């Protein structure tokens, strides 16, 4: 039997595994939730879960980079980015994204299960779980699956806001994969985060900064071929 204790590595690994499943569930929610406010909350929760995973890993491994990643994620993805997107959502006055391309939520969830399996098969042929250890290997699987699910969001949802959230989910997947496999240099992670913040800032500026009316924002985006067109608004 396992002895109780919160610093026990076995307990910590168990907790990390539980968080893995929750991460995937948030990704599934990003795929299927229709309310934009809930979508943003889901993304925030997902980032918070990543923060926790990085924190727990720091407790297991003791590497200070993990702690730094944890703090960085907390600041950027849990606080800053949701704050900006919240501003955008408040301005653009649409509360729901009901339209789906190619895949309905029900079938995209089935596809997601398939994706996890595919990634598992792919990685086990590529890396081999013995080289990494089961927990780390599974973390890599979850990270890559999260990336693919983010991509799935980007092509299966219509609204730009949702697409941006899909992109952010994808980046979260990259972060997770990085934590568990490649030991991504911290500086690259910082650069990515700065990149993300700039993207989100740009979206915000487009929406609320330079042009205060939503009409012009749409025209601008249409010129950039990002916005799908007026009938979806």
């Amino acid at each position: 039997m396992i002895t109780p204790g919160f610093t026990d590595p076995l307990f910590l690994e168990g907790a990390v595994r539980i968080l893995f499943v929750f991460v995937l569930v948030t990704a599934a929610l990003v795929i299927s939730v229709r309310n934009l406010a809930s979508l943003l909350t889901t993304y925030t929760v997902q980032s918070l879960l990543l923060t926790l995973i990085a924190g727990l890993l720091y407790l297991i491994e003791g590497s200070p980079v993990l702690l730094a990643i944890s703090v960085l994620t907390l600041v950027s993805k849990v606080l800053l980015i949701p704050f900006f997107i919240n501003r955008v959502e408040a301005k653009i006055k649409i509360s729901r994204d009901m339209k789906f391309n190619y895949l309905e939520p029900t079938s995209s969830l089935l596809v997601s299960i398939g994706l996890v399996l595919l990634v598992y098969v792919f990685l086990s042929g590529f890396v081999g779980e013995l080289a990494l250890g089961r927990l780390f290997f599974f973390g890599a699987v979850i990270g890559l699956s999260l990336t693919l699910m983010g991509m799935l969001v980007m092509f299966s949802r219509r609204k730009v806001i949702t697409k941006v959230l899909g992109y952010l989910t994808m980046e979260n997947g990259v972060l997770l994969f990085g934590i568990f496999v490649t030991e991504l240099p911290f500086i690259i992670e910082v650069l990515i985060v700065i990149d993300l913040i700039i993207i989100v800032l740009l979206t915000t500026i487009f929406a609320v900064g330079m042009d205060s009316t939503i009409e012009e924002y749409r025209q601008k985006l249409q010129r950039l071929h990002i916005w799908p067109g007026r009938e979806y608004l």
Partner: protein
Amino acid sequence: MILNSDISFILFCLLNPGFVLLISPLYMSLIKKVKAAAQGRKGPRLLQSYYDLRKLLHREVVYSPTSSGIMRVTPYLNLAVLLLASLFVPVIFIPEAPAGIGNIIVFIYLLAIERFFTALSGLDAGSPFGGMGSSRAMSLAAVIEPTMVIAFAALAYVLKTVDLHEMFAITSASAIPVSPTLVLVSISLFIIIIVETGRLPVDNPATHLELTMINEAMILEQSGKNLALIELTHSVKQTLLMAVLINILVPVGLSGGFSGGLTGGLSGGSNLANLAVSGLLGSALAFLVKAGLLAVIIGLFESSLSKMRLFRLPAFYMMAFFFSALTILMEVFA
């Protein structure tokens, strides 16, 4: 010759269903109370369900001339089936049961009997409401079934047994959850409780509006003591499902090794017997409190959600299935 294990089992057969039957209506009113509080109302008294049952039991039964024996047999059969099912979920102590009592698949299918006959009795009177309820209830129950079976399969995977009694014995022997998977399965089990007992966002137990109702539509033609039996059945079902979740996640207080001491106490000194009885009381009290907490959580959960459109439900169920499937993948791979 009667063995100790036989005594323990006979005692269990009397105690467990009796206790479940006794406490079940309490949680129905407790959930109503919590929901009322969340809405700023006062809500019914905690014992209101008992008063309702007493009132209904003394009312006459009205049958439609269209209805057949199905309508007459179903209330009795359903309560009997649920009482049988209560032998599968020990709430006070775990007995040494003969093979088959405790099998998780038999438990699932005992619940299916209840559903099957309730749906038939919904069709029996020929009312359009009843038919609608039966159709919706059976369809939705079918779609949630994979989630339910996968969740129970995950339990069987982790605990390496298909017997609920043995599962509880394993979980109650350790202080924290045996495996992270169990925590995840518990969440699936929670969703199953919500779906199977017809709570928001799946079904609204508080309304009689044809757009929303599923379970209430099926029993619209039931009256008098038959209705009382049906309500009682429903509450027993809820308690049993809650008990499965509680005994998997927080089995603290469930007496695993007590049966031996108990029978020893019965045949031996009165001191031991006293000890055993007080132990049983402690277990019962522990369950009462834990189930009460769970009922409060269910009430809060219901208060925070609105009813989903009928055809939005498959997506919700798909989410639940996704979750359970991930849980089992996790168990297989990690």
